[in-house]
């Protein structure tokens, strides 16, 4: 009897003692930044995200005594799910990576997301858009940080209708992602009292959009919603300018447009475009300071919301891991992250919901006309702030199995 | 139409992009004979060959093999009916051994040519016959050499051996003596004569002494038309033929014609 009690006590001690000792796998924390280093999304994630992750470590370790071995590795997933999944398996099985960060392109993100869960590691997603990551595919190992399709659709759809843009025509990329963006936005538009007067599904990837733009023009809709991404979006905006769509009184609403796209288009072409972002470099002093350093290290570019999100996510991750003093159990780390409020220089205060969704304000911007711009990268004027509570899909509508109804 | 003939062509015509290459050629090759097709350069002899063997599709006209209409058949089907040709330049399978070259021809009879799951050792049953054929043409003992290593004359011999392996009823030889030395010419002449004992031969040949020596009947083509036909002695006297040959710069043939004549 006494023996048994002793054994129990020992076991209990061992259990409680384990987290007390620093239990870092492989003697340190290894952060893997995986994104597009060479393709369409290289500018909005790419090396900039790697820089942001390193910067987060430096900033965190400035204020707190942190573990002395924190390493950043990175890989190019080339926007191919199979490349991403191979790399991430090897990271976990061979290279002892503890957390995967960024992962733009929804198809790759979903593939990585599944493996992260299988191997009980952590994914901090900043770059991918799919709201499924915290919806029906949600996982106890994933945090979705910066934005998602629902937030973009809601921000752009809702706020535009409220400011008078109540008739819509959609230019939709004909694949799952485009359909989802169109469906979500159309729902928001109709809920806010607007009307969808037409839509056209263009092949993906497209080159010439003039024909579709002409159809949009003839629809007389006030707003032309661009439910596409990347090169398709920039090409449609460029050709819309050529065909005098904006001068003709119609407005373009980009449902997935980043500041790097606006930069690529120039203000002359992109002026008047309305879009939703989670973060803009010229909003606060902290943002501007961060961006100034970023610019020096990254070919003169300003950071995108994706790169800022990587900074913020890594910062919070380090906080949670140091609190736990362990990084081996991915689900436990994520649970810890959810239990702590988030706070950092770029995204301010916020929180992570049970479904893995990080919550913060979103912003509706309009692209300035060239004469309004005061200098390089001065591209946006704020049209509306969407408060955190309304910016993201309510948890009970996401069908996430982690959320008890 | 002559039913006893091996090959008959009726008003054979071939047009290329608006110009008439072969113009109403009527040809009858009697069974069991050696028939030569001659003519100066540009007479379209090879074009006729290609038409008869169906490597080219005639624009109009008919072709019969043993009285059977083969105008619409694929070239491989024509070969399967026993009409096998050779080519102007030597046509061996250069990186296969002599044995394999001949065996390719024999292999078809086995009916296993589509059997990708069967080992190639199943073809060894044909080796004895292949070696025998090689021996008959004077290539015995070198069956394991690669065809590319043979001198030119021997390649032509190998080609004839491969053709003979099919036991064709009709052989079409396209310039079998082209580029041959004197010694090889003699050997191949003998070979053709031997082969022709049990079959029909139609050949295109520039070397008129060979033609004179071997052939039973000669058809002379010029610019895609038949200008004369008959035994050598008659044809070589034909003024039209002499003019056709003399009228060209083809001095070699011209000289050959005179030489054979005199």
């Amino acid at each position, binding site marked *: 009897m006494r023996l048994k009690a002793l054994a129990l006590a020992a076991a209990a001690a061992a259990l409680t003692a384990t987290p007390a000792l620093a239990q870092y796998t492989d003697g340190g924390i290894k952060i893997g930044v995986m994104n597009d*280093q060479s393709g369409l999304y290289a500018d909005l994630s790419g090396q900039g995200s790697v820089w942001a992750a390193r910067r987060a470590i430096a900033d965190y370790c400035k204020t707190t005594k942190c573990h002395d071995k924190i390493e950043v590795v990175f890989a190019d997933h080339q926007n191919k799910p*199979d490349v991403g999944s191979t790399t991430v398996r*090897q990271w976990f099985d061979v290279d002892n990576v503890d957390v995967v960060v960024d992962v733009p392109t929804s*198809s790759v993100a979903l593939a990585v997301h599944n493996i992260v869960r299988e191997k009980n590691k952590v994914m901090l997603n900043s770059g991918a858009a799919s709201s499924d990551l915290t919806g029906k595919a949600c996982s106890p190992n994933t945090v979705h940080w910066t934005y998602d399709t629902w937030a973009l659709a809601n921000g752009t759809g809702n706020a535009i209708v409220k400011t008078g843009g109540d008739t819509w025509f959609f230019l939709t990329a004909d694949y799952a992602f485009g359909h989802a963006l169109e469906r979500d936005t159309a729902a928001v538009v109709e809920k806010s009292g607007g009307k969808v007067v037409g839509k056209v599904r263009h092949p993906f990837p497209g080159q010439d959009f003039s024909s579709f733009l002409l159809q949009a023009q003839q629809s007389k809709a006030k707003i032309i919603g661009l439910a596409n991404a990347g090169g398709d979006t920039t090409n449609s905006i460029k050709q819309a300018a050529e065909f005098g769509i904006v001068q003709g009184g119609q407005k373009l609403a980009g449902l997935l447009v980043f500041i790097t796209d606006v930069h690529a288009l120039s203000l002359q072409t992109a002026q008047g475009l309305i879009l939703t972002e989670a973060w803009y470099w010229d909003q606060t002093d902290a943002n501007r300071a961060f961006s100034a350093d970023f610019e020096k290290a990254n070919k003169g570019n300003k950071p995108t919301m994706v790169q800022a999100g990587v900074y913020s996510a890594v910062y919070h991750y380090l906080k949670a891991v140091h609190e736990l003093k362990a990084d081996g159990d991915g689900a436990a780390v994520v649970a810890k992250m959810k239990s702590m409020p988030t706070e950092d220089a770029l995204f301010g205060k916020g929180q992570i919901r049970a479904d893995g969704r990080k919550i913060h304000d979103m912003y509706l911007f309009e692209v300035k006309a060239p004469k309004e711009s005061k200098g390089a990268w001065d591209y946006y004027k704020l049209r509306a702030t969407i408060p955190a509570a309304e910016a993201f899909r309510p948890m009970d509508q996401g069908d996430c199995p982690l959320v008890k109804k | 139409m002559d039913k006893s003939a091996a090959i008959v062509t009726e008003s054979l015509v071939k047009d290329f992009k608006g110009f008439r290459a072969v113009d109403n050629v009527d040809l009858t090759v009697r069974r069991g004979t050696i028939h030569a097709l001659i003519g100066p350069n540009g007479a379209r002899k090879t074009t006729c060959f290609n038409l008869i063997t169906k*490597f080219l599709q005639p624009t109009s006209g008919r072709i019969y093999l043993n009285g059977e209409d083969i105008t619409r058949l694929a070239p491989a*089907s024509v070969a399967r009916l026993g009409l096998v040709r050779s080519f102007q330049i030597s046509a061996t399978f*250069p990186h296969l051994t002599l044995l394999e070259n001949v065996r390719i021809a024999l292999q078809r009879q086995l009916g296993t040519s*589509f059997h990708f799951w069967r080992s*190639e050792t199943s073809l060894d049953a044909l080796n004895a016959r292949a070696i025998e054929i090689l021996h008959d043409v004077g290539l015995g003992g070198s069956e394991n050499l690669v065809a590319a290593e043979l001198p030119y004359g021997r390649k032509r011999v190998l080609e004839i051996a491969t053709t003979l392996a099919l036991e064709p009823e009709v052989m079409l030889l396209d310039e079998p003596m082209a580029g041959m030395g004197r010694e090889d010419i003699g050997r191949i002449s003998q070979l053709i004569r031997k082969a022709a004992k049990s079959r029909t031969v139609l050949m295109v040949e520039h070397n008129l002494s060979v033609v004179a020596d071997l052939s039973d009947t000669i058809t002379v083509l010029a610019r895609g038309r038949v200008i004369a036909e008959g035994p050598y002695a008659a044809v070589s006297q034909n003024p039209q033929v002499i003019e056709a040959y003399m009228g060209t710069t083809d001095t070699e043939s011209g000289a050959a014609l005179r030489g054979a004549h005199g």
Partner: protein
Amino acid sequence: MKNYDMPIFAALIAILLVAPLAIYPVFLMKVLCFALFALAFNLLIGYVGLLSFGHAMFFGFAAYVSAYTVKAWGWPTEIGILAGTGVAAVLGLIAGLIAIRRQGIYFAMVTLALAQMVFFFCLQAKFTGGEDGIQAVPRRPVLGFIDITSDIHFYYLVLAIFAAGFLIIYRTIHSPFGQVLKAIRENEPRAISLGYHVDRYKLLAFVLSATLAGLAGATKAIVFQLASLTDVTWQMSGEVVLMTLVGGMGTVFGPIAGAAVIITMQNYLAGFGEWVLVIQGVIFVITVLLFRRGIVGEIAALATRLTRGRGEAGHIAGNPATTS
């Protein structure tokens, strides 16, 4: 001439049996799948002299079929792989009937365009999951008792599939049918004149090649639990050409060496981003200009030179494309 192919193959399998001790098995599985893909491709370019620039359609489409049947319909793994392989065979027959009538560059262009049609079909069809592909394909026990959730178990199964694929190809090359293929490659008009309907032989070779490419793709889909658009893009077709070219077209082991080299390179250069593309391009150019026989072809040529001490060794590799 003495043939060392089988002893080399046995040694290769022996090495592969112990390889997981030193090398990450998932990486090895990837190499094996692509090696099989390249071997299938090589059957066509190396032994029939036909350059297909659209082989990704068989590889990628088979991957979709096996992933879908296993995931959505709950088919057993082995049946899913067979289904993918079978569909690739049918696709091969259709594509072959259209493409086989052309030769050389024309054939390459036609296969490229056909593959592009398959790509657009996969992009639009509902069952392929569009951009996301078919994800999280379950790894169910094979034949009901071989557990493949463990990478190492699955590795040996993939090795078995690879070995079977290799042996099928090897036997095809060394069969009565293979003899006719060689004859067609060496001298097509002559093969016709000997009574062979060469188009039918080419078609069968095309279908066989497509089927085995499909087997590789179907297996890959289960290995990575994923089938995606990447596998049906024309860039994938280009990649298999690169592997075969680098390894040695028309050599028995060349495609395996080429696949190993290219996959390893992609793996280690992954951190270099856009340089991967440049380096692949440079390899293409250098191989085409200087080492047309490829790795294995050059080694074979060297060996021949050493043993024979004379002569042009280029024929040994049997590279058909060097003779125009």
